[in-house]
């Protein structure tokens, strides 16, 4: 019934368009051949897509069909992309302020990446985390799978704690073989003392050989803290609230957030996890393009 909701349909179409627009703007694909030159078993031909290595075009196939095809081998074809989508309460921030709502921004990024991956005939899976629970959509390669992903993304509403650390950890059981895990989150899920933090969890799965990318979604208000009027600040994930004089603590808060972003960057870098800050006051297409370019560059360096 929910699928017939006009609002949902509209949002799905809007997100689909945005995803395609974002993915078309990318000059690179999500991945490239990892084992170039090795004798692996031919799997199938894949139609050329922007970002593919032109050296791997099958010129014979071109002569026959007058279209560009790339030979795909077993390892390449089986790449699985898992998008971990954080829909915790804090992702709902940003309505009516400068910058886009974080969740909406994250949806566009997630849908764009999924669309790109599916257009490269990669299998794409989606895990949404909200209100302490998670929903998992297994990885598929068929193009119709995109619609299901988009529906899941649209249905995801910001609520409660995200349980991001547990969600990421669970990927170790779900990902088999070569896989890419893209985490889209604001990483504001602070762990209680003694609990595993989301950074800890990311380090764990990276240590297990799963390639991880993190799109760290941030709203400009979390960077600048532009508030001036004394007010009660309320948590978006539970019922806590407190009276704050913003002008008193603005400087310290800004420094604290900067320190946290640096900590994230350093720890993820040390764990060889690709990390991309995503400010919601910039166009998602540009961000996606920058992310993919940088990722391709990193892959080449690592190769």
């Amino acid at each position, binding site marked *: 019934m929910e699928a017939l909701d006009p609002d949902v349909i509209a949002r799905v179409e809007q997100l689909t368009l945005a995803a395609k627009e974002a993915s078309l703007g990318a000059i690179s694909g999500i991945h490239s051949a990892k084992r170039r030159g090795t004798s692996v078993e031919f799997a199938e031909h894949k139609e050329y897509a922007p970002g593919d290595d032109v050296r791997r075009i099958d010129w014979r196939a071109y002569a026959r069909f007058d279209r560009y095809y790339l030979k795909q081998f077993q390892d390449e074809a089986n790449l699985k992309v898992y998008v971990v989508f954080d829909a915790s309460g*804090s*992702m*709902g*921030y*940003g309505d009516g302020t400068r910058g886009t709502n*974080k969740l909406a921004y994250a949806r566009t990024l997630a849908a764009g990446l999924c669309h790109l991956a599916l257009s490269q005939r990669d299998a794409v899976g989606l895990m949404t985390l909200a209100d302490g629970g998670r929903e998992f959509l297994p990885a598929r390669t068929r193009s119709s799978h995109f619609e299901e992903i988009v529906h899941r993304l649209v249905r995801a509403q910001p609520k409660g704690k995200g349980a991001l650390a547990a969600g990421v950890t669970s990927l170790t059981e779900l990902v088999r073989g070569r896989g890419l895990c893209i985490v889209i989150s*604001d990483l*504001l899920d*602070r762990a209680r003392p003694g609990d595993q933090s989301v950074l800890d969890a990311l380090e764990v799965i990276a240590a297990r050989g799963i390639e991880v990318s993190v799109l760290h979604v941030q*709203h400009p*208000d*979390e960077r600048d803290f532009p*508030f001036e*009027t*004394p*007010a*009660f*600040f*309320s*948590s*978006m*994930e539970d019922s*806590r*609230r*407190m*009276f*704050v*004089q913003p*002008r*008193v*603590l603005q400087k*310290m*808060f800004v420094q*604290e*957030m900067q320190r*946290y972003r640096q900590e994230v960057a350093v720890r993820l870098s040390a764990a060889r996890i690709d990390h991309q800050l995503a400010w919601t006051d910039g166009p998602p297409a540009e961000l996606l393009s920058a992310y993919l370019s940088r990722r391709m560059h990193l892959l080449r360096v690592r190769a």
Partner: protein
Amino acid sequence: MSFLSPALLFGLALIGVPIAIHLIGRKRAPVLMFSAYDFLEEVVQRLARREQLRQLLLLLLRIAIVALLAFGLAGPGLKSLVAPVAVSDTLIVLDASHSMSYRLGSSTLLARAKKKAEAILRDRSQGLALVVVADTEPRPLAAQPNADRTALIGALEDVTPGPRGGDLASAVKRGLELFGEGSVDLFLISDLSENAFGAGDALASTKVHAVTLVDAADRDDPPRALANVGLGPLVHEHLSDGGERVIVTARNFGAAPASGELRLTLDGQVRARAFIELPPGAVSEREFTLTELADGLHPGDVTIAAEGDGYADDDTAPLAIERFAEPRVLVVNGDPKSVSFRDEIFYLERALQVAKPEVAFDVVAADDLSTQRLDAHKVLVLANVPAPAASVGQEIADFVKKGGGLLITLGDRVSFEAYNEVFGAILPARLRDQWAVADPKAHDVLASALGLTDIAWQHPVFRRFDPVSEPAFTQSHTFRHFFVEAQDLNKTRQLMRFSSGAPALLERAAAPNEGRVLMWLSTIDRDFSDLAIRPVFAPLAAQMLRYVGGTLRSAPDRAYVAGVPGELVLPAGVSRAHVVALGQTKKPSPPIAVDASNPTASLPAPGHYALAASEGGPPIIGTATSAIASLEESSFQPVSREELAKRWAAGDVAVLAASAKTPGAPSDFRGYAHLILLALVLVFSVQSLLASRG
């Protein structure tokens, strides 16, 4: 510690305001949902102690600001630890005479004086103090000298200029009576007009330590008279050519030459202007002549606008001019003759023909009287007319009862018995027989003839005559006249007598709405008297006809001075009347009643007035008059300190000018308002700094 205004310490209650704002402001703060709440909470927890301290400090500083404000306004101070050797009490005598309403710049002298009194009370905070207002009667602002400066300063607010001059000497005496044995410093706050100080031994008291003359006008010492030009009583005359003459007297009371414009306004329109220049102390007259005024009442005034003149009360002199239509006269000739100069009314006709304004008249023979319509005329003259039929007599009596005027002159055609019978109700007195004083043909006739005397010069008939004309009456000769019944004389008015003492001209005592009746007890031709050939006859004849015709003013054309008792002239036949205000003049309250036996009254304020027969009734025509402001307060000639010391028997008491140092022991009250102000600035700065960091 003591305070100049302890009542203002109630302002300390306002320290609840910042506390309330602190508490209410937090409750009314908006709620914001924020994503990075955990990080915010960490920061808040780290800053919590510092922020709480800052908030507490801010609250305390804001409370301190309110408290310091209330404290500072209350005028805190400390009394000196060393007791003063001698402390003088303070007596302030505040001049509230009417001249203190003089406007100097933007405020009156009284307003300035009140500020000075307040300053003295604040400055002399030690000892007892009292303020006595010098109005027409001395008026202390407190029952006893006391130390409550705030109450005295508050009572000053209600002091207003009095209606007349004040008496500073009485006020000083009254104030000193209320003080005990201590030494008193006396402050006289006044416009220093010498007429307010009077004379006496006001300063002979041993209590007086020193006297300070405080000039409300802030002039140099010795002061000069303030600029003021005032108008004196107006003189108004009806001219013989029908015009009106108004003579205006202006006087410069100031110490400098003055000039200004005189303006005469009637019926709301400016009718005449003149420019006037006056050296200091000079008096000048200007004469205005008005013509072509319509009949009726013309209220107006004369004003002067002189540069620098701050005293407005004497700048306007109200003026009321009443004009009447000349009466139409029917003359009944009782003894016509073919030789004109022997005719009974020959001289009367000549007199009326030269009268100005002209008196219109018709002449009929006695036989034709019964055919005449009397109501077409205002005045009827019976000149030696034989007694008519009873019906005609009744008609004439009705004419008089309805307001018509009647002049009766006698002669050989008159039978006193018939007259008494026909005209008994309207005669001033019943007639008796004739008396032949002398034979006109005798050689010594002039020696034995009677002259005219005991003339009622204030009566409207004779008011126009100059006293120099008296010989013309006394030297006239009457050879024969009628007597009247002596018992009737007490109910009539004798306007003129023969030199024998017998009545010559009588006026009937008429009721207010009845016509006037005059009776000349001799002839108006030369048969019984030679008055007709005397120069006074023509104006006398015209005045008699105007008077019985009701067109002569009952009261003299003079301006009264407001507040000064003056004699009002009641119309003939009116024994009791009420003064009513005309136009916008403030109605006297309570109504002023005047009695014919004692017609003296005081008109309360400058303006136009008239008499009314009853309280609230319409004004009686011919009684309009006006009152000008008293010039009693117009002089601002100041008294000098030396002169005051002599006048008030100051003896060894020093009379100081206000510019000299305030006498008496220096105040032991050390005010700390400046320190409070400094603290306030400091606290406010710290508060602002602290708030800006928040």
